[in-house]
Every structure is written in structure tokens, then in C-alpha cells.
């Protein structure tokens, strides 16, 4: 198990930039989280191999669900690990509360690690922003979350292309999808249109439709040096 410990040390310095300790959560808003300033329960999946083992202990309980639904979308704080990757002690008291939102931005989560998300039957929001190993194969693993997933963010993942986005069709409950800044998508404007057609109930965000469009001939800036217009 040498690998997970090594990567913990690698990831820790990056956390310090955006992490506030659990004591500072009062007024803090995670800058990379979704734009609506909603704060829900969060597990930082720092290392899929290590931390997600701890997620295996979570079970659904009816009374907790009701309490939770009342308190949902209200000032609940994100739970983050400290710089050593350890979750605070209070965290373990919540072991029976269903996990609603996972923010795995910038994580080294990969194909095998996504399997761990299957246990989270109530997952509503998943953020995989800028994950370097999430590719088209990984997107084909998201379908078990179809019943509950409402928000998904894939912004900035370097390996996702338009071929993998077709797999998101299974997520029929999706209401908000962020596919901005995907460098491997060949034609972002057309892809956005096709994804919007594919998921009519979903608000697809992120791709600038004017990207890649060239000015028409009338609008070309006049270049007086050139005898022949470009």
C-alpha cells in the first residue's frame, strides 16, 4: 500500500490552497464548487484508494433521510480532511447519513476508483473537475448513479472527448451538466448542441457556442496591404 501514502503527500500541498480547516467553515465558500452557493455534505475523495474505504460504512436510514431532506441545501458545511488527509473525528458520527454530494475535483480518481461510488445510492451532485485520469471509459461507469444524480461537472478533464459524453444519456435525472473547457472535444459548439438534444431536461453549461466560429467574409477586417482579400 505504498502508493496511496505517497500520493497523499503529493496532494496535500494543493489542498492547502483551497482547504480551510473544519473550524473555518463558517463563512468560507469553496471557490471551485458549483456556482450556486449551496453547501451540502461533502466527502473529499482525495485518494480513491484510501478514503473511499471509509465510505463503505454508509447505510441509508429512513429517519436520517427525512431530517436530511429538511436540512438539505441549507447551511451545511463541506467536510474536508486536514492536511494529512485525515477526516475529523465528528465525521465518523455521520456514518449513517447518506452521502449527497461528492467533490472529487483535481483527484487522481480513475476507472477502478469510480466503482466505489456505486454504493452511494443517494448521490445527487458529483464534481469531477480537472481529474487527469477521467476519460471516456470512466464516463461509461456513471450509469448506476442514474436514479439520483442531478448535477455533474466534468469541466477541465483533459481526457474526455465527445464520444464519452454519449454515455451521459443514461443519467436521465440530470439537471445540470458542466462540460466546459474539455480540451479533447473536437468541436465544442456542435457537441454542446448534440448533448443538449440528448438530455432535454438538463441545463448544459459551459461550452461557448461562439468558440471556433470564424468571421464571415463581410466581417473580415479590411487589410489594405493585401491586394486580394483573404
Amino acid at each position, binding site marked *: 500500500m505504498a502508493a496511496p501514502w505517497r500520493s497523499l503527500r503529493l496532494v496535500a500541498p494543493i489542498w492547502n490552497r483551497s482547504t480551510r480547516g473544519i473550524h473555518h467553515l463558517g463563512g468560507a465558500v469553496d471557490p471551485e464548487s458549483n456556482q450556486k452557493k449551496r453547501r451540502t455534505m461533502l466527502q473529499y475523495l482525495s485518494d480513491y484508494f484510501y478514503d473511499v474505504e471509509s465510505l463503505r460504512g454508509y447505510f441509508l436510514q429512513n429517519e436520517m433521510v427525512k431530517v436530511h431532506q429538511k436540512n438539505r441545501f441549507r447551511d451545511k458545511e463541506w467536510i474536508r480532511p486536514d492536511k494529512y488527509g485525515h477526516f475529523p473525528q465528528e465525521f465518523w458520527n455521520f456514518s449513517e447519513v447518506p452521502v449527497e454530494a461528492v467533490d472529487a475535483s483535481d483527484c487522481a480518481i480513475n*476507472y477502478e476508483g469510480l466503482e466505489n461510488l456505486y454504493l452511494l445510492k443517494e448521490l445527487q451532485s458529483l464534481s469531477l473537475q480537472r481529474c487527469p485520469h477521467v476519460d*471516456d*471509459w470512466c*464516463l*461509461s*461507469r456513471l*450509469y448506476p448513479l442514474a436514479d439520483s444524480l442531478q448535477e455533474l461537472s466534468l469541466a477541465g478533464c483533459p481526457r474526455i*472527448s*465527445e*464520444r*464519452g*459524453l*454519449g*454515455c451521459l*444519456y*443514461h443519467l436521465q435525472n440530470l439537471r445540470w451538466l458542466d462540460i466546459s473547457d474539455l480540451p479533447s472535444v*473536437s*468541436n465544442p459548439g*456542435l*457537441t454542446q448542441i*448534440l*448533448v443538449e*438534444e*440528448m438530455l432535454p431536461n438538463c441545463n448544459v453549461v459551459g461550452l461557448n457556442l461562439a468558440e471556433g466560429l470564424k468571421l464571415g467574409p463581410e466581417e473580415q477586417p479590411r487589410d489594405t496591404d493585401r491586394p486580394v482579400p483573404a
Partner: protein
Amino acid sequence: MLPRVLSLGVRRGRFTRRPGRGGFSLDWEEKLSEIKKKIQSALPGTSLLPLYDSSHLPPDHADVVIIGGGVLGLSAAYWLKKLEKQRGALRVLVVERDLTYSQASSALSLGGIHQQFSLPENIQLSLFSASFLRNINEHLAVVDAPPLDLQFNPLGYLWLASEKDAAAMENNVKMQRQEGAKVCLMSPDQLRNKFPWINTEGVALASYGMEDEGWFDPWCLLQGLRRKVQSMGVVFCQGEVTRFVSSSSRMMTQNKKEVKLKRIYEVHVKMDNSLEYQPVECSIVINAAGAWSAQVAALAGIGKGPPDTLQGTKLPVEPRKRYVYVWHCPQGPGLESPLVADTSGTYFRREGLGSNYLGGRSPTEEEEPDPGNLEVDHDFFQDKVWPHLAQRVPAFETLKVQNAWAGYYDYNTFDQNGVVGPHPLVVNMFFATGFSGHGLQQAPGVGRAVAEMIVEGRFQTINLDSFLFSRFYLGEKIQEDIII
């Protein structure tokens, strides 16, 4: 080696000693032969003193000669080099007749991969290949070369079954799930909900692969394998195998019947457009010649004998021509459409972002086109493919064919499944062919199986004992029902 040494006119062997003389003796003939042997081992080529350029010829000897440089041959070469006991232990030569791959099935393939087979071994092979392709940049990484982009599309396969096939499909899906494939069954109503563009008339059941299924770029896989395999030290050569020279020995079976076992020790590789050939001494031959495997097998004497005997059992692989058509349909299924395989055998899939679709249909036995050339028959699309497409997907009533091509299946007429493993009589010829349209998707697994058979002596990862050649003689069919 030894015949050549003898032909140089040395009458005495290395180990004779002149009687009566002690110590170092200036035996000129012996010294000369030793010098010649040293030069020969240092420089490749037939000629002892290379009077002419022989760099285009394959080497004099190789441990394993792989006939056929398509995806199966390259996969076998890769795994042989991966599993060899010591680095550089196996000298592998890949002989490919056409290095432009203009007729190779691997290059002309649609590139689909799915696990929805009726045979557990096929499912295992496909799963293995899917995980190989998923981690392809770890397997086929070459120093200083850019990573491979397979352009994998993970949208899965959707197989439709009519009333009479529904029970078989249900059983198959149960078995596929047991083997670890992620497949779900859908009723016609669920199908209509999921894919509103399908006309579910005549469909009783559908099976949809959710993970590890889709399609990719076979040319990228081929080039990736070739690049990696060359970096591992496999020798490539362009040539055609024209002759096998083998030695035979007679053995007695337990029932006191005499059996002639053959062992190929030389492969003659003929160069293109010339009569020049190079005899390559070898110890193992792998027949991965795809659609032309039967010709290669016939060169080794497989099938030459009275019918209904093991000697007379031919390799039942023949080339079958299949057409692929590309059409444009602006109102067709969207980005999410899987590869749909209809009850009639018609299949199609989306290609790219621009509403283009690829598809085709396997002809029935009576309609089989002549495999002599790769000309496309456009009337086949008009008469046999389009009606079924339009019936299944009403949007396809208006479409425009843009392009078409044809390729070969290495079709196993016996049971449409591959042949893997050694021949019982020609003991050092191994087969990796006959996959009848699903060879590309099983290539990594089959290559590994052949390499394990050669290096370890038995199948280790996936047990392909039922794919051996002997089933043709024994008549044990392992029929694969689900092929396009």
C-alpha cells in the same frame, strides 16, 4: 546449421583429434569452418561473405515465425516478447505479405468490441481485450513516442431479438452476467422509452451492453502494436510464405496405429515481385494469416490425406467478403445511439458528430459474394440492407450513401469460432485465426493465449482448450450464435 557446415567440405567433425599429436594442432580446415561460422552468426543473410545487399531479406533463423502481420499476429508477437523467460530469449519474425495492409481484415474492420457472446470463452477474451484497450498506453508505451488515442466510443451494443430468439438471448445474457459482462435486458416498452427512434415491431427482447463495449479505431491499435513490437525487438519482413520444409517421425498411438508427426524446421519466405526467397530456420510457426490461413495450412500438408482422418482434416477457414456502407442522415439517432444489431442481421452505428452512420448486413449463405476481390456491390445496400434499416429506424427512410468498402472475414465454416493452439500432427504450427468477424476484439486475449501455449505449454489466463484444431476432426462444434 549442421548441413551447411558439412557442405563446406569439412570431413572431420569438431571433436575429432589427430592421433599422436599432443597440444595445439593447426587444423586448417577446422579453423576455416569455425571462422565461417563466426562470420555467419555475426552477419545475417544467406551468403557467407555478403556480396550483395540482403537487408530486405528476413534473417537466417528465428525461433518463432509468425505468418501474418495483422492484429492477431502482432498481438501474438507482443505477448511472446512479454512472456519470454529471459529478455531476448525468443527471436520472433513477423512475415507480412502486404505491408500497406490494403486487404487486411484488421485495417478494414469496424472496430467494435462487445461481450455479448454465447460462449463463456469468447466473453472472457472480450473482457480481457477491453481491459487491455483501456490500459493500452501502459501496455504499448514506447519511449519518446506519443501516447495512443484509440478513439474509443463506449456506447455499447444493442442486440434485438425476435420472439423465437428471445429465450436464447435471455439465457445468454444470464451467462454473460455470470462471466462478468455488464449487460441489461430490455423489453420493447423499455426500449421505446430509452431510444424513441427505434421501431420495436417484431422485437421481443433487447440486450444492451452498458460497460466495456463500443467501438474504436483498429488502425491505431495496429500501428500501436507494430511500434511496440518493433521496439521489443521483433523483426518485421515483407514476404510471402511459399514453402515449409519439415521433418517427420513415425510414432505409434496407444491403439497401435501408426501416426506421422511432422515438424516444420524451415520456412521459405519469398520476396515480392521476384523469385528470391530466404529459407528461415525456425522452431515454431504461428499461422495468423487471417482470411488466407487455409492456404498457409495447406502448404504445411494440413488436410492432405484421406477424408475423415486427422491427416485429411483441412483448416475450415475461408475468406468471406463483407460490405460496410457509410451514409448520412440528418434526422437519425443522436449522440447516444449504441451499435444496433437488428433481428435481420443488419447493424449500424453512428460515426462522429456529423450525423454519419456506418453499417451493413451479413449476407445469407445463398447471397455470399465472390471473395475474389474487394469490389463493393451497391445494389446489396439498396435491396438487402436499406429496407431493414428503414423498418427498424424510420428516420433512415431518407438517407444518402456517402461511401462504402469491403473487407474479408476469416470465416470458420465449421462453427464461426476461432482456432487457437497447435495442430495435432504438425506439432509446431500454432493457429490464431478463423475468428469470423470478431477477431479484432479478441486479439489481445488470443495473442496472450498463443504466447502462453508456446512459452508455458498450456493456457493459463483463459482456457481455450475448446478452440483447438482437433475439434474439426472430432466434430465437436462450439457454435457461436451471436455474430454479425
